[in-house]
């Protein structure tokens, strides 16, 4: 107990303090963008000051100064964290606490507190970011933490920079097997509490209301929406990559809003050659929408729910990356069910858009069938319309304006006008929101869908055929469907006008950069799939390896290796008693062991002093008597003489002499000199020569 108290109250060495500061900086650096600016600045000043006091002892912060800083920072952080709902507050609180603690780094105990807080800060960092670079950075943070711990318990202040790095790197490498075992088999336990994520701010290409004409320019984001891998590693043709996310059924004259839909059972009984099975890894979106290839049939994941409009939704908002498997049909045969709630898909406001109404009346008068009406509309689009990402704003009778005046727009405009016109013409229709396209990554064989590939199209109900997909955009710009979006628009200034797309544009123009980005994304994909999403594979993997897995087996699997490891450690600790030797003593043991190989009798007995031993050896090995005498003399001086009288070169000399002795002994052993006529090692007798 006394020893523990002693340790905690031990002063920290300057080297340890420096490492603690480095640790603090490293650990909190990635969270700088989440803490308020003033805290970052104050922290920087504080840490530099503390470092300065280490270098020069003059600039000690006065007591009242410390008090002012502590109160100010605590107040500031409290105000900040009361205003922010999410993790920012927590992270600021932690970092501020650690920063303030760094002002009173004196004892070992302070160091421990700081190390623990640093571990926590590093862990909190993963709540903000779980990407591969952040994981690598987490490793670096861990390294600095271990370094700081090492320095805290090491007396020497020399080589404070690189030696601990080397040592802790070695320690961390040693811990890798354990890490792997835990990663592979430790049961994934659900979170005990949840924290608010603030990732809903991510730009998406979709919103729950579609109102074309409101915005003159589409916000485009190159961020990833989701990734898909296919069971047969073959993506569908580009014109079939319609990713269904939501349907808009209600039109109020201005825009479309999402229909309330009922849940529906999965259609799992379809067994068709055309069935496409795939796995989706969806990025967090803070909404419940999920992505499925048109037409979705079923998903095996329990978190996924199918709805009557053929879309998938998660049961809870997607706040973390999720992965699910699903199956779809590219061409869905009509199942013969009549349309439920037909008036809903025909509802339009009673008035407005007179020109469009007039056009539809003309069709009716001509006696067009439903197909003919659609064909007429699409022909019109094809001949007179242009596809642009920056159309003019629309006001008033928007559809009239679009169809007969501006005649330009992007997918939403066309979908909007088509669905409205079809409804007027008596064809039930709805707008479908989702994504079109995707970039195929050859390295890892998955399809990457970005936010800017968001798309809208129309579904019309044709009696006897069911819901039919109509994409008016194909009529205007067929290349939009076939070609990758970015290739199609990379040259058009409006697509790239967004500053966030600049880097992206550069990437698209440079071939090697594009390859690199594909490679990186492939790596990222694997990261998400195998590391972050491992808990979904864990059960399957473990089942493959160990058969039907039960909790008992899992625990055994966990505890048997851990038990074995502990046994090894225990054994090592028992053995280590003889190992913790003074380096000078070690060389005596080494020489004794070397001689024992030749003749057991020449081994040093435990009660034999080095002096006695060397005299005994000299008797059997007169060839090296001089060396032995010098050696034992040096030994005695090194180990037993007054410490102040010991010079550095004495120990060097001793070491050199030991080496010399060993090589001589080896040579003599080879010549067969040793071992002949060895004196009987009667230590008892020897000790008897002591005076009694």
């Amino acid at each position, binding site marked *: 107990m006394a020893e523990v108290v002693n340790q905690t109250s031990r002063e920290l060495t300057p080297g340890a303090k420096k490492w603690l500061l480095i640790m603090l900086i490293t650990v909190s650096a990635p969270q700088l963008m989440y803490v308020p600016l003033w805290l970052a600045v104050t922290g920087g000043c504080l840490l530099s000051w503390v470092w300065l006091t280490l270098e020069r002892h003059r600039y000690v912060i006065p007591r009242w100064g410390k008090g002012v800083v502590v109160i100010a920072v605590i107040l500031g952080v409290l105000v900040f964290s009361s205003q922010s709902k999410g993790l920012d507050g927590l992270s600021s609180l932690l970092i501020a606490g650690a920063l303030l603690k760094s002002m009173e780094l004196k004892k070992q105990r302070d160091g421990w507190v700081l190390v623990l807080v640093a571990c926590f800060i590093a862990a909190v960092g993963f709540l903000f970011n779980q990407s591969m670079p952040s994981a690598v950075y987490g490793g670096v943070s861990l390294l600095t933490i271990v370094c700081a711990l090492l320095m805290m318990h090491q007396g020497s202040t020399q080589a404070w920079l690189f030696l601990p790095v080397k040592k802790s790197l070695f320690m961390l490498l040693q811990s890798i097997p354990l890490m792997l075992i835990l990663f592979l088999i430790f049961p994934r336990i659900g979170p005990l509490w949840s924290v608010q994520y603030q990732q809903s701010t991510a730009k998406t290409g979709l919103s729950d209301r579609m109102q074309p004409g409101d915005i003159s320019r589409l916000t485009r984001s190159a961020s990833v929406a989701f990734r898909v891998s296919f069971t047969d590693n073959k993506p569908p043709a580009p014109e079939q990559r319609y990713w269904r996310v939501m349907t808009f059924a209600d039109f109020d004259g201005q825009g479309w809003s999402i229909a309330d839909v009922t849940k529906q059972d999965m259609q799992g009984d379809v067994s068709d050659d055309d069935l496409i099975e795939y796995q989706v890894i969806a990025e967090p979106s803070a909404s419940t929408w999920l992505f499925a290839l048109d037409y979705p049939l079923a998903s095996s994941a329990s978190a996924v729910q199918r709805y009557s409009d053929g879309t998938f939704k998660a049961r809870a908002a997607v706040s973390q990356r999720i992965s699910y498997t699903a199956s779809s049909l590219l061409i869905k045969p009509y199942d013969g069910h009549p349309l439920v709630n037909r008036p809903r898909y025909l509802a339009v406001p009673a008035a407005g858009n007179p020109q469009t109404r007039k056009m539809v009346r003309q069709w009716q008068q001509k006696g067009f069938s439903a197909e003919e009406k659609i064909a007429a509309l699409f022909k019109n689009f094809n001949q007179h319309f242009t596809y642009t990402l920056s159309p003019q704003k629309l006001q008033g009778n928007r559809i009239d304006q679009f169809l007969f005046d501006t005649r330009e727009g992007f997918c939403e405009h066309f979908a909007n006008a088509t669905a409205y016109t079809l409804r007027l013409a008596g064809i039930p229709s709805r707008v479908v929101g989702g994504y079109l396209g995707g970039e195929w990554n050859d390295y890892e064989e998955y399809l990457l869908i970005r936010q800017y590939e968001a798309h809208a199209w129309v579904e019309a109900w044709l009696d006897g055929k069911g819901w039919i997909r109509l994409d008016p955009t194909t009529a205007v710009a067929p290349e939009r469907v076939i070609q990758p979006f970015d290739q199609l628009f990379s040259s058009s200034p409006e697509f790239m006008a967004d500053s966030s797309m600049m880097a992206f544009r550069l990437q698209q123009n440079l071939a090697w950069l594009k390859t690199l980005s594909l490679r990186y994304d492939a790596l990222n994909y694997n990261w998400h799939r195998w590391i972050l999403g491992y808990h979904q594979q864990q059960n399957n993997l473990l089942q493959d390896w160990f058969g039907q897995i039960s909790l008992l087996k899992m625990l055994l699997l966990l505890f048997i290796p851990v038990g074995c490891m502990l046994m090894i450690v225990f054994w090592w600790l028992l053995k280590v008693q003889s190992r913790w030797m003074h380096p000078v003593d070690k060389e005596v043991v080494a020489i004794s062991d070397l001689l024992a190989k030749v003749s057991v009798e020449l081994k040093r007995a435990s009660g034999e002093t080095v002096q006695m031993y060397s005299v005994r050896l000299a008797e059997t090995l007169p060839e090296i008597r001089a060396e032995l005498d010098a050696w034992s003399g040096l030994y005695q001086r090194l180990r037993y*003489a007054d410490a102040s009288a010991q010079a550095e070169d004495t120990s060097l000399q001793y070491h050199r002499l030991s080496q010399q002795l060993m090589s001589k002994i080896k040579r003599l052993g080879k010549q067969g000199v040793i071992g002949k006529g060895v004196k009987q090692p009667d230590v008892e007798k020897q*000790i008897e020569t*002591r005076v009694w």
Partner: protein
Amino acid sequence: MRDRIDQLVDTVSSVVLGKEDVVRLAVACMLARGHLLIEDLPGMGKTTLAHTLAHVFGLEYRRVQFTSDMLPADILGGAVFNQQTSSFVYHPGPVFTQLLLADEINRSTPKTQSALLEAMEEGQVSSEGVTRQLPSPFFVLATQNPTNQFGTFPLPESQLDRFLMKISLGYPDADTEKKLLKHGDTRSDIEELPVCIDSKMLQDIQTACQQVAVSEPVLDYIQRLAQFSRSSEEIVLGLSPRGALALIQAAKAWAYMSGRDFLTPDDVQQVFSSVVEHRLLIRKDLNYQADPIRAILTKVDVLS
């Protein structure tokens, strides 16, 4: 000064023949300011050794033959009525000397034995309410007969503890004995021996012995020895901390005599038996072949 010590040892050895090792130990004991107990059968030369030592150190010495009817006052002295002044006058006993030869100390009763206790420990005598300082240096060289002899009162453990060393001479070997027989009684020669070390030099040497450096490894070794003696099942009572201190004290003197100013485990091993043996209580009911004290030295590793 070391050559003077060697000379002294040689001188004593010329009287106590063939026992140079024991002589060295006895000298070391005195250099370490310790009291010496010589245990042996009668006629082995105990008294001769004591006499010689007293003489070559040039110390003022007195000899007291302990008997069973002896009283403390016989050693310490007492008040005697002076008829002329009609008052009691303190007459100092034989203890007021630099070197007290307590011959056959275990022949006297425990009461008398204890009278020596304060003198040995504190260097002073309290009698009639007055404390009187003994001269410095003050040594007690006691001889005793083996305790299984008739008419002996074994010294209590507390008293034994006050002797730094207990040594025994043993029979001389054949050559020495023949020489001894040839020369006859050498006791008369003692008076003619030179004084090798005077009391001034003795004090210097004693100070120098005190200053011999003791390094951590040696302290560890001594601690391990003590620890082992306590956990050994052949030993009922292990070495006390005071015993361990005594071991260091004696070993320092030995190191000094060996010409070193630092202590090595060799020094400790050399003095170990004589310092430790009388402080341990060795189990007697078991018939061990090996000497348990020797076993401590062989079993405790010198290197940690």
